[in-house]
């Protein structure tokens, strides 16, 4: 069994092509069942986000499966294969595993360390599980990837720190005020930027938003657009400021509308309640000296951008630690994955031994006929235990040789010859359970 990944992402394709191969548009379940109908893969999972569309598959013949999955992508979306082919990437086995681990860790994301991707990988697996297109190999692979994502998140700072200006503002507000639920925001200016920032604050739990503008009608219109916000006339600016916690200054004024003296006056009546002023206007609305006042935290758009840059830098310094976790987990998965190479030999060996046991019991059937029923059951049990014990060590040895495919091949070859397993490997006998058990009056106890 081999692993195969065929995909397209922001690294290989422009956004318009990515939009056309977006599986979630037509339903991932539909894609999975269409893929299964082609019968070239045993297991399949589709990971589809706005930055990537990837098909993970378990198959016997990676070369032909690769061609077919690539063809499937262009067929399913109705795009000529010549258009897609150049942008597709494909890797197999442990490289595919490593790639998924990197995706789950957020290392492959457009914004490194963004938090949504792990949830998207999880839901991709859930959809496939529901459509019954997963199996032991992909289940193991995806669960390992969840572990990678979780470890990277808890053990590194890859996902820490806001990486957009509006999140940086919200994160600062949280560090100053704690919970934002009971906080009041005042937006000075009725423009688009102020409106967007207020909407963002509202989505983060702020309850009261007041818009103050020189033109009351503009303020009222913006307040209505935000929904649940109130408008106040310009003359009331001071009293609104006194009652608020966060000020978003976003007017088109050419000279500062909030001077240091002005803010000092507002702070006098506030005692030690902090005031967080976000100046996103260009040119600035707030005199920079206002930030010197105790309990006033003044950030302008450049300051916020600087913190975003710092966060991005910090994230990139964490990449190495995340990569180390990915490598570690890839090694763990590799041990399991390679040991699967021995599985057919192990199965054949067990079937061979069990067939011999059964044949002998059948041959001795007449001699055992005089035994009472539970005596016969005991004989059945004892013979089975002997076979189990005999097979225990060879099975373990085969599995633990998992790291080295050559050893596995040598072991398999030797076992196949020594026990004449060739015919068993070619045509696996029917499952032992379905055979008539010669002595089993009652089904053997589950062990």
């Amino acid at each position, binding site marked *: 069994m081999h692993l195969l990944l065929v995909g397209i992402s922001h690294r290989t394709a422009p956004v318009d092509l990515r939009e056309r191969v977006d599986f979630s548009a037509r339903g991932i379940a539909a894609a999975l069942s269409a893929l299964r109908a082609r019968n070239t893969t045993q297991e399949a999972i589709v990971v589809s986000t706005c930055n990537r569309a990837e098909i993970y598959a378990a198959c016997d013949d990676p070369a032909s499966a690769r061609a077919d999955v690539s063809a499937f992508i262009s067929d399913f979306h109705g795009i000529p294969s010549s258009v897609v082919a150049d942008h597709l990437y494909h890797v197999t086995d442990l490289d595919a595993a490593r790639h998924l681990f990197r995706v789950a860790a957020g290392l492959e994301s457009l914004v490194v360390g963004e938090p949504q991707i792990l949830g998207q990988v999880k839901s991709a697996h859930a959809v496939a599980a529901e459509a019954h297109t997963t199996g032991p190999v992909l289940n193991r692979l995806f669960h390992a990837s969840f572990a990678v994502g979780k470890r990277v998140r*808890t053990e590194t*700072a890859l996902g820490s720190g806001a990486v957009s200006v509006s999140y940086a503002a919200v994160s600062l507000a949280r*560090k*100053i005020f*704690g919970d934002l639920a009971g906080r009041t925001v005042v937006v000075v200016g009725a423009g688009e930027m102020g409106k967007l920032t207020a909407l963002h604050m509202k989505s983060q739990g702020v309850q009261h938003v007041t818009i103050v503008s020189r033109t009351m009608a503009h303020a009222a219109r913006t307040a209505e657009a935000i929904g649940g916000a109130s408008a106040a006339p310009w003359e009331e600016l001071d009293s609104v400021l006194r009652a608020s916690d966060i000020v978003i200054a976003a007017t088109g004024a050419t000279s500062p509308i909030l001077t240091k003296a002005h803010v000092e006056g507002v702070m006098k009546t506030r005692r*030690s309640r902090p005031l967080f002023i976000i100046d996103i206007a260009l040119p600035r609305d707030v005199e920079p000296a206002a930030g010197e006042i105790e309990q006033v935290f003044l950030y302008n758009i450049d300051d916020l951008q600087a913190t975003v840059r710092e966060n991005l830098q910090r994230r990139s310094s964490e990449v190495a630690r995340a990569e180390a976790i990915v490598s570690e987990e890839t090694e763990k998965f590799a041990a399991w994955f390679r040991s699967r190479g021995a599985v057919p030999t192990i199965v054949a060996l067990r079937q061979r031994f069990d067939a011999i046991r059964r044949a002998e019991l059948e041959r001795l059937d007449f001699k055992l006929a005089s035994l009472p029923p539970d005596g016969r059951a005991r004989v059945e049990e004892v013979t089975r235990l002997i076979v189990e014990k005999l097979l225990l060590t060879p099975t373990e040895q085969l599995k633990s040789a998992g790291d080295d495919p050559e050893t596995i091949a040598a072991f398999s070859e030797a076992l196949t010859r020594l026990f004449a397993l060739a015919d068993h490997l070619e045509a696996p006998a029917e499952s032992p359970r379905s055979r008539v058990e010669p002595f089993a009056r009652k089904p053997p106890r589950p062990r």
Partner: protein
Amino acid sequence: MNAAPLVLYTAALIAYAWHFARRHPVVGRSATTLLIFASLSHTFVIGMQTMEFGHVPVAGPTSAISTFVWLLGLAYLYTELTTDERAMGVFILPLLVALQSIPALHPGVEDRAPVLQGPWFGVHVSSLLFAYASFALACVIGITYVLLFKEIKAKHLGFFYARLPSLQVLDRMNQVTVVVGWVFLTIGIVVGAVWAAQVRGYGPGSLDPRVQAMSLQDPKIFVALVCWFVYSFELFAARRIGWGGRKAAYLSAIGFAIVLLNFVPVSYFLTKSHNF
């Protein structure tokens, strides 16, 4: 006997520091577990001493320090487990280790003078120790407040920004711990004053020179009153002149520095009234 808790406190300190630097959740949980074991072993030590002496070991300055460390450890554990906030540990633990090394390395004698028999003694000492533990928390919270405040003001969001709770939470915790500490400090001082006045007039210890030294001129009593004024001012300023945030944090730190001064050097070398 105080050495076992010291070793465990030190181990917990290392784990808290490691957790603070690398923020590995497993390390954080082990840090808390180590501190819980340290507190348990310390509880055992104090329990053993209580049985040995027939009273809680708080009469001499050395054993009072040990009991104070024990209370502070428990108070910190309580805040950590209720707020799920582990960042403060790295500031509290050094204090625990430093103070606990005094009773661990120089075990004092716990010999209760006849004047200290009676219920007033227990109320006086235990409320003061509790007040000091509360002030220690306030001090640590105040220091972290200032560290975070400076980072945000300087627009350089880094180490503490990623690790500490919000300014608002720290400010409120500072207020609460100072109020609790102030209440117990007041109770402790009032009880001590009433009790000393009683003993001086009559009773078994009226001839004890230490009782005769109980006055405002005694450094221990004087410094305790200074503490009371500092914390009273902090509470008054927060309510009347709007001194919250950084100023309150500084006052908490100054207040506890005075407490510590009173607790160790004054107790050992200067006081004539409290050297039991």
